[in-house]
């Protein structure tokens, strides 16, 4: 999609409004050059790259386990999910079977990540459009999820919990109780947030009919996730190409028809409800069993064995000093993150470091389409549309 060069559009009566890179309404560092005629937006040219950290280049110099830490920082509102896709890609190249208990734990953590991401989105979006109380509610619920991660993994954000081949430690009974308590009470909290917004005339006025896109345009422009599902396309990778045991879970894919900002809001609210159901099913499905596959060349042996078994000691030493090697080849894995389809393309040359790690992120694709959605709308609609796309700049810039 061509972005018209700003100078060609400028004529008498138009003005270029420069927004960002630091702006309270643009969450994350994004610079927009908006050509306006009065209030009407004629063209939008985003400038990105203010958070480009070179993650793909850094990954070529790290071991496969160290990269999990990098991947968590790629999309910091849903850290478990970014790492999830990456682990699946490496496991595909290694041809590694993850035990069922770890699969269920990963699903539980991924769905909690999804809820957490949508809560952050709700907080930011409602604040953008002038309603600050839902933000307080959302962040308070988010704290409960972060406490769960602190219990399970030791860290609030960036838990570094997933490992190649499984997860790093088991869920304790106390943590499982907290998760259970959370999913029992959380649906009421979603109801409270909805009470502020869903039938609120100001909210409807700001979002209904704003930034609508057709299903066909959405597919051509590579839009995925809630943005695509709000146009009527029931494309959710957890249903269409299930991974990590999702085929054993029952859930609905929320879909709307109009493709506007209001529909995207409703899709995300309903996704939170579906995620609650998935977490409940995950907890019920947990059976005793191993956490990681028994592949000592890749998965470090238990510390108790390292002291007494020479082979275990050698594996432990090699894994933590040099890293494990992954067979030559390439793999592409796509998973459903809260924003859409995250695609991980991994090329290995047989060494302990990836030859090429490429991450395609949904925010990158969704942000490209901003001008398509905003042309002809007002500047205030621009904020409403940008918020409804749920852009994470760390995903866009990597």
């Amino acid at each position, binding site marked *: 999609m061509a972005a018209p060069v700003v100078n060609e559009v400028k004529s008498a009566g138009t003005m270029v409004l420069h927004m960002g890179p630091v702006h309270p309404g643009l969450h994350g560092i994004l610079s927009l050059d908006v050509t306006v005629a009065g209030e009407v937006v004629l063209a939008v040219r985003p400038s990105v790259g*203010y958070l480009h950290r070179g993650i793909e280049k850094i990954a070529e110099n790290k071991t496969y386990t160290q990269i999990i830490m990098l991947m968590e920082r790629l999309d910091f509102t849903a850290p478990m999910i970014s790492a999830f896709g990456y682990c699946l890609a490496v496991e595909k190249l290694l041809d590694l079977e993850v035990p069922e208990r770890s699969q269920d734990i990963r699903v539980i953590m991924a769905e909690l990540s999804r809820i957490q991401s949508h809560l952050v989105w709700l907080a930011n979006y409602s604040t953008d459009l002038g309603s600050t109380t839902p933000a307080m509610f959302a962040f308070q619920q988010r704290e409960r999820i972060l406490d769960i991660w602190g219990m399970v993994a030791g860290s609030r954000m960036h838990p570094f919990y997933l490992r190649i081949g499984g997860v790093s430690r088991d869920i304790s009974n106390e943590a499982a109780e907290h998760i259970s308590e959370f999913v029992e009470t959380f649906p009421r909290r979603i109801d409270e947030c909805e009470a502020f917004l869903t039938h609120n005339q100001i909210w409807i006025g700001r979002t209904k009919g704003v930034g609508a896109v057709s299903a066909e345009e959405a597919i051509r422009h590579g839009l995925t996730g809630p943005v695509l599902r709000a146009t009527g396309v029931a494309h959710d990778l957890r249903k269409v190409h299930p991974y990590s045991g999702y085929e054993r879970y029952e859930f609905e894919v929320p879909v709307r028809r109009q493709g506007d900002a209001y529909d995207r809001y409703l899709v995300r609210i309903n996704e939170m409800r579906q995620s609650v159901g998935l977490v409940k099913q995950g907890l019920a499905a947990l059976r005793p069993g191993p956490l990681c596959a028994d592949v000592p060349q890749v998965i470090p042996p238990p510390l108790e064995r390292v002291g007494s078994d020479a082979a275990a000691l050698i594996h432990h030493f090699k894994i933590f000093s040099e890293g494990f090697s992954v067979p030559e080849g390439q793999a592409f894995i796509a998973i459903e993150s809260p924003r859409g389809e995250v695609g991980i393309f991994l090329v290995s040359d047989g060494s302990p470091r990836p030859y090429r790690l490429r991450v395609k992120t949904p925010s990158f694709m969704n942000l490209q389409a901003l001008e398509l959605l905003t042309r002809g709308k007002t500047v205030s609609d621009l904020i409403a549309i940008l918020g409804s796309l749920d852009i994470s700049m760390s995903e866009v810039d990597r």
Partner: protein
Amino acid sequence: MGVEEYVARTLITVGLDRAVNWAINKARKNSLWPIGLELACCALEMKASCMPPYDLARFGAELFQPSPRQADLMIVAGTVTNKMAPVVRRIYDHMAEPKWVIAMGACAASGGLFQSYAVLQGVDCVIPVDVYVPGCPPTPEALIHGILQLQKKIEEEHFSDRI
């Protein structure tokens, strides 16, 4: 020195100066209005510190200003890239004195995890930093501790250092 001179030079001048300094520093430290530079992951913990249960408002610092002209404190929350460095510097220059800087997180302090071609290895390469809050990301309690440390630093300064 006679008694009158002692009273004039020491007790009144120095005492008055100390009293005025105490009052101004107390006013400054208890109403630090941040411009939160929401760069990356630390921004979420910074926002969380304003929300229940951490509540930065207790310390007078909850009024995040969108404009640098009206802010006293810049909290650099996240990775500063080479592309962003001139922007951070310009925002810092636009802030009126007195102004302080907190480098929140490992990335703002030293580049953190990202030792690459695109990342500035610490925001102190472009602006002077008063307090470093380590962590990746620092918890909201750590940020609040950093703000309290900054308040102690302000108490020890003389108000005329930042005019």
